[in-house]
């Protein structure tokens, strides 16, 4: 493994973690939305959007180096982090459907990544 690839992998891994927290804050913020459009301007949503933007910066810097077959699956690790946070923060359960669906999706993303490079 070249230092360049390791660097890209760390950037993409960081993007996946930051992005998963972005989703958590969007979920927190979404609970505060009412019929009033101004309710969209709440701190949780703003922080969620900021985390998303931050995550995309890491992501673009990371995938600039190529090697999508390795980097794409790393991005999709974000789905696993999100599953963990959803259980931790929102008491959502791990069901068989969720785990099986996620495993299939991850395998699919790995194959798409292999096809892309």
């Amino acid at each position: 493994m070249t230092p360049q690839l390791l660097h890209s992998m760390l950037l993409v891994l960081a993007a996946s973690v930051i992005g998963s927290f972005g989703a958590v804050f969007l979920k927190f913020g979404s609970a505060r939305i009412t019929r009033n459009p101004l309710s969209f301007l709440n701190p949780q949503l703003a922080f969620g959007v900021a985390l998303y933007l931050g995550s995309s910066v890491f992501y673009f810097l990371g995938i600039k180096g190529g090697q999508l077959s390795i980097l794409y699956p790393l991005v999709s690790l974000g789905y696993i982090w999100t599953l963990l946070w959803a259980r931790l923060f929102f008491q959502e359960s791990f069901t068989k459907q969720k785990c099986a669906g996620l495993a299939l999706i991850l395998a699919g993303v790995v194959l798409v990544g292999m096809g892309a490079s």
Partner: protein
Amino acid sequence: MEAISTENPKEAAAARRQAIILVFFCTISGAAAQILGKIGMSHFSPQPLAILTNVPLLSGYALYGLNTLLMVLALRKGELSMLYPIIALTYVWVTLLSYTLLHEPPNLFKNCGISLIVIGVAVLGSGGKK
């Protein structure tokens, strides 16, 4: 008003369906945003005027905004752990659009990959019908 009521299973199922539909549209707009971004970047030049007149790039960014809005509305109604992985459908649309619009050559890995993603999303979406 705030959260979905789990007391009425009919209402909960309708809310869940609505959330899945919202995320579905979110993946389509996300894919369009990526393709537009790719087209925009292909004639990108780092001058302010060139960026402001780069219609594909700007519409790509606008779609990202729409995308986030749809995601937030979906999350209001449904479970994060069920909805978030559905975003992987974006890979499916991007791959199909790159075949047709960007004339990228199809290959077996990509075709198997997007098929698995579609099956995975179907499995995820089938949950909750306990």
